[in-house]
């Protein structure tokens, strides 16, 4: 087993991976950019190494810097987390070339699945149905293909993932603009502007299957997750099991996923994403060759630590368990907390999360990357935390998650918390009757009206009373440290003045 592992990431996933490594008695090395000096993920690891400037391409995407840090720290393996270099074949190769173990699939597997066009071919060859789609040398060819296929269509980055850069178009007129925008995001996020076009399956649900492979042709699945609640192709709420999946559909998706993983001799943890149409047809979307953001819901219903499984497979080349040993029980649901202003077109927010309180209580899990006083910067993904609840039934899990969100408080940076709370209270979410476009098509308008409502008079009164109490308006310091003085400590004076008793 490994003695020391470098985690080539930041934020909540670094903290999450470190927790398992520490439990296994393995020492941890964090890396950080200039912007993340003193960040939570550097504090939870045994050591931390500076790898470059704030811009991701200078630090977290800088293969040489990360591999050097790994070598210099004496680590014997590297865990990539998700995002950044997690699905970069050149990085996996560089780690191996430095004599270290990459905790993940082979470079060839990353490369094959990373090119979504190649992934479609592999799925097709393994007998997994794929969404009708087309490739094209240029925008004109793509428009011609889309015209032939019929609208609406969706444009995706060939080397993309995680919904980034996806654009849908409902007619030829908007397609050209959408292709250009998708190409720009693809070029900047993935270093390659190639895009392809797929038929947009309307009224579909997003169901994905967690697989683990030994790299020699054996694979198991850890059931499915439903990630249908999305906004702009970004997952917002995920759950396991998928609430609307029939036993037949579950058998189809899990068998197809295992078949594909075995066909490519997949190594480590991966996810096969599918869309299930209203008519019940299953279509392959893509395979993600990494741990997913939403992996905790699978862990809660299966009792399997997926990070531990990744590490054991990387160290031993064996699956830690057989398919028949993998059981599922109860329901888990996760909400992603983002630094976004839901009242203002979900614009990403920056600042200092000056006062943060995470929920606790039985069967509530929080995977977070910030604590009170931590800075939320412009350079990286605005996800702050994932809040996950487990219960025997879906209804009880939603109820428990709502309670946990009620107990969540982030001040100093605007978050999407009001959006998450309203979303989980929506009758359609409670009854499970929605599709991947439902949030934008039906939920957002009503939610926007809610956000436009005036704050209660009591909120204004509270602000005025806090001001009148003479609380100093301490500003967070430039380096992102918490205000040295809690303004509310000053309320003592108020008491002395006889106003509070």
């Amino acid at each position: 087993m490994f003695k020391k592992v470098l985690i080539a990431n930041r934020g909540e996933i670094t903290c999450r991976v470190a927790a398992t490594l520490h439990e296994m008695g393995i020492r941890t090395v964090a890396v950080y950019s200039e912007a993340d000096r003193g960040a939570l993920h550097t504090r939870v690891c045994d050591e931390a190494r500076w790898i470059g400037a704030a811009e991701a391409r200078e630090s977290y995407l800088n293969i040489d810097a990360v591999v050097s840090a790994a070598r210099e720290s004496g680590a014997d393996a590297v865990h990539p987390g998700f995002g950044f270099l997690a699905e970069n074949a050149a990085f996996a190769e560089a780690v191996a070339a430095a004599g270290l173990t990459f905790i993940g699939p082979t470079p060839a597997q990353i490369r094959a699945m990373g090119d979504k066009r190649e992934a479609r071919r592999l799925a097709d060859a393994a007998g997994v149905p794929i969404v009708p789609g087309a490739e094209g040398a240029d925008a004109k060819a793509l428009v011609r293909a889309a015209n032939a296929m019929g609208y609406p269509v969706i444009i995706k980055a060939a080397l993309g993932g995680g919904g980034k850069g996806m654009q849908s178009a409902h007619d030829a007129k908007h397609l050209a603009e959408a292709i250009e925008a998708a190409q720009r995001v693809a070029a900047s996020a993935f270093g390659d502007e190639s895009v392809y076009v797929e038929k947009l399956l309307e009224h579909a649900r997003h169901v994905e299957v967690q697989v683990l492979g030994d790299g020699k042709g054996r694979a198991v699945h850890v059931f499915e997750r439903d990630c249908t609640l999305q906004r702009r192709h970004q997952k917002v709420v995920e759950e396991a099991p998928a609430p609307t999946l029939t036993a037949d559909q579950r058998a189809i998706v899990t068998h197809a996923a295992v078949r594909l993983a075995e066909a490519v001799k997949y190594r480590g943890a991966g996810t096969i994403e599918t869309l299930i149409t209203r008519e019940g047809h299953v279509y392959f979307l893509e395979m993600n060759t990494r741990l997913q953001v939403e992996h905790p819901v699978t862990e809660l219903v299966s009792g399997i630590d997926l990070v531990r499984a990744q590490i054991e497979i990387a160290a031993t080349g064996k699956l830690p368990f057989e398919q028949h040993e993998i059981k599922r029980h109860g329901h888990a649901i996760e909400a992603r907390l983002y630094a976004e202003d839901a009242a203002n077109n979900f614009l990403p927010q920056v600042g200092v999360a000056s006062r943060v309180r995470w929920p606790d209580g039985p069967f509530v899990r929080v995977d977070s990357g910030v604590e009170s006083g931590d800075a939320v910067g412009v350079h990286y993904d605005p996800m702050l935390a994932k809040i996950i609840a487990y219960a025997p039934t879906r209804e009880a899990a939603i109820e428990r998650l709502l309670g946990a969100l009620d107990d969540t408080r982030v001040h100093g940076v605007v978050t999407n918390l009001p959006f998450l709370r309203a979303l989980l209270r929506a009758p359609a979410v409670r009854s499970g009757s929605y599709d991947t476009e439902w949030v934008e098509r039906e939920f957002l308008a009503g939610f926007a009206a809610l956000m436009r409502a005036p704050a209660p008079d009591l909120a204004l009164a509270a602000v005025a009373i806090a001001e009148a109490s003479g609380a100093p308006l301490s500003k967070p310091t430039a380096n992102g440290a918490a205000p040295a003085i809690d303004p509310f400590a000053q309320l003592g004076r108020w008491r002395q003045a006889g106003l509070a008793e």
Partner: protein
Amino acid sequence: MKSHWRDGDRVREVELQPLAHGRWRVRVDGSEFELSSEAMPDGRLRLVGDGGVTVAEVTPDGARRFVRLGVLDFVLERAGSGKVRAGAGGHDGGLSAPMPGVITKVMVVVGDEVTRGQPLLALEAMKMEHLIRAPREGRVKRVGASPGQMVQAGAELVELEA
């Protein structure tokens, strides 16, 4: 003590008058009520009014106040602090960056006639591209950014004239 707070699109006025024994007379946009307040050991405020007891937590952040009332969250901003919410809108013919980021594309040049909703620039921040669109018809008077340039929130990007 009178103060003004931006609450979404509107500006709210609150007037506070201290009474005896921790009680206040509060007037918000003309409606008046009384309540008493008490600072809890953890810094939160316990507000007691006709409607019962509410726990409030107020965190200052520059001109903004994050308010948690029971389990609900609000963000108010001191009005007259000079900060204008740009959003996708703009003001006085100018269009400013809604957030810090990198300009990835400039689609207009000075003198262009633009229509409402037409994309003017693309701004990338936090891995997402945001199109800055014209809030109304007009002619581009000035372009204050070029591709690849890093801009701060509030930076004037495009100026339109009627």
